[in-house]
């Protein structure tokens, strides 16, 4: 009886992970790909993230939890080491030359500073303090720029 119950739990866990995979794997792969810029590596990170989901599955069902943001947060933690080892400092130069860091309809509407702040935080996992130091701005200014980025995304729906 206990084994059967355990099997049911395991089965439902797998089903829950499958459900999350069907809904968010493509979005998460797109996010990871923009960080690592390599399809093979991105897929490996995607697999690693979903392999960890069964251990935290209860977190996904807590009230008010956005499943995609939770997955993205897990991916960010996994990618932290990768981002540290492949620190790309070419973004500021690219932005100054009107080359968009990420080819996306939302990003293309942002100013160079907004792009550096948004891409730095979102894809490169940089803390606000680091971005502020890099751009020689205050942390409040960085937060304001970040807020403007979200206004652009919302307006461009």
């Amino acid at each position, binding site marked *: 009886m206990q084994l059967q119950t355990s099997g049911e739990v395991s089965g439902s*866990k797998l089903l829950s992970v*499958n459900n999350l995979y069907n809904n968010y794997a493509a*979005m998460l792969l*797109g*996010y990871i790909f923009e960080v690592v810029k390599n399809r093979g590596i*991105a897929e490996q990170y995607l697999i690693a993230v979903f*392999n960890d989901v*069964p251990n935290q599955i209860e977190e996904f069902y807590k009230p008010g939890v956005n499943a995609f943001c939770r997955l*993205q947060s897990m991916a960010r933690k996994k990618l932290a080491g990768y981002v540290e080892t492949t620190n790309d400092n070419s973004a500021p130069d690219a932005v100054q030359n009107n080359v968009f860091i990420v080819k996306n309809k939302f990003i293309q509407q942002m100013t160079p500073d907004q792009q550096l702040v948004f891409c730095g935080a979102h894809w490169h996992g940089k803390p606000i303090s680091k*971005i502020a130091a890099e751009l020689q701005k205050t942390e409040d200014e960085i937060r304001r720029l970040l807020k403007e980025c979200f206004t652009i995304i919302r307006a461009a729906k």
Partner: protein
Amino acid sequence: MRVEDYIESGILETFVMGAASDDETKELMFMKARFPEVDEALQQLELDMELLARNMAITPPPNTWGKIEQEINDIILRDKTNPEKFTQKQRGNDDFNQSKQYNNGHQYIEVEAESSHMKIHKNWKWVLAGIFVLGKIFLACAIYFYLENRQAQQQLQELKTELKQLKK
């Protein structure tokens, strides 16, 4: 600080992007629980993040889910066949206290599983049988040629003896 000012400060955006400090996160959790406006604004930002991600989605290769499923099934199987937990009460040994701590917090006795046997592929059975048969054939040939040679030597000796007698 007024709730509206808090929402406008950009801290919510910082949190959604995973760039908030621990103190900011604690404060936000408090504000979220206390003010529904903060919760609502946070949910809206999370939907914005989903929108951005949906716009940049890449469909994974068809075999990706199979790999994940296989790995999860292995983990589940490993959990089911977990070795029995060893409690320190069974042995108050200092050596044991230094034994390896695993992620799930359980402690296990390290068992050296070194076998004196080795495993080989089944196809080696035919190779070994072939070597055995060839060995037998070579042995039979060696005996045959040894006897032939001995007989030839005897005949040669006899011929030499006959030749000597004829010369006399």
